[in-house]
């Protein structure tokens, strides 16, 4: 079982010092669209079929966190943490999408739009289950909503750690940035929990 260690977290934040926008920009600069063939940058290495599948899955999963925070942010407009973090989650999702495209993974059939009809709607059953559960739990109270944010971040960090295993440096850079962002979100939710206690 993987555990989250504070020193590891601080290392990530200290070493990287980057946000998700920087991640996306770096990824684009590193060779967006090159995954289909000739245009690949030197940074891009071959991934196994399993690694490519995981990459695509991580991208699809990023929508869950974003949509949960959008919906809970609407329910608790006084809680600014949701508003701030949903923007960051949108950037995480785009960073993961850029990485997918870089490796030639077609993401065009995943609806990541921000229309009211699309938010909270997931074509994949397990993601719909997760989203529905988060909203059900978060709807109980303002405090519970923030606590949902905390558990979503803990889960995201764990998932990224697992997905990172065996990945090449360029993917790890993006994953590490996503993880550093998640640790920052975790801190923000824990601060909000302390404030509300």
């Amino acid at each position, binding site marked *: *079982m993987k555990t989250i260690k504070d020193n590891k977290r601080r290392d990530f934040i200290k070493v990287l010092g980057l946000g998700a926008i920087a991640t996306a920009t770096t990824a684009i600069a590193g060779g967006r669209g090159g995954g289909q063939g000739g245009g690949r940058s030197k940074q891009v290495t071959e991934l196994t*079929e*399993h690694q*490519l*599948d*995981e990459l*695509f*899955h991580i991208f*699809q999963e990023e929508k869950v966190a974003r949509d949960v925070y959008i919906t809970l942010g609407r329910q608790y407009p006084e809680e600014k943490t949701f508003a701030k973090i949903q923007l960051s989650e949108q950037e995480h999702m785009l960073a993961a999408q850029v990485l997918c495209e870089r490796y030639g*993974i*077609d993401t065009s059939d995943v609806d990541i739009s921000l229309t009211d009809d699309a938010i909270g*709607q997931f*074509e*994949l*059953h*397990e*993601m*719909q*289950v*997760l989203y529905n*559960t*988060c909203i*059900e*739990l978060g709807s109980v109270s303002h405090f519970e909503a923030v*606590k*949902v944010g905390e*558990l979503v971040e803990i*889960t995201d960090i*764990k998932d990224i750690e697992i997905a990172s295993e065996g990945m090449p440096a360029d993917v790890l850079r993006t994953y590490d940035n996503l993880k550093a962002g998640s640790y920052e979100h975790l801190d923000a939710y824990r601060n909000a929990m302390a404030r509300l206690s």
Partner: protein
Amino acid sequence: MQTINTQTKEILTKSLLSYYETLSEGDLKKLASLMTKESYLTLLNALGFKRSFKDKTFQQTIEKSGEDSASLEIVEAVLSSDLAKKEERHEIALVSFEAKGSQRVTVHYSEDGHSKKIYFSAASGTWKIDYNAGRKVA
């Protein structure tokens, strides 16, 4: 363009319907047989999120369930009971089949009128629900 034969379509349709039926009944043993191990564990995590949220011990148990069969059995027993109590039913209607390679198919369907899809992959001639098989392969 790859085509999907009638027999495969029948197998996948049956599997999709069984997926929802086993979830409704809380029959996780049968559900596990329909899915790849990795996808099954992912689903257990999603189904167990509510309990993990409220119960740290359960959260720790579910985290171990991928590697520890005793933990997996505990998680399955708890979630099976939860699902059976909820007895959630959905209206499922098939829409289309999309080949994503010779060993992958995405089934498009609707759940209570909402557009959904589920991924399948074939290994050793057996089709299984595989959450990671959404990517098109050669």
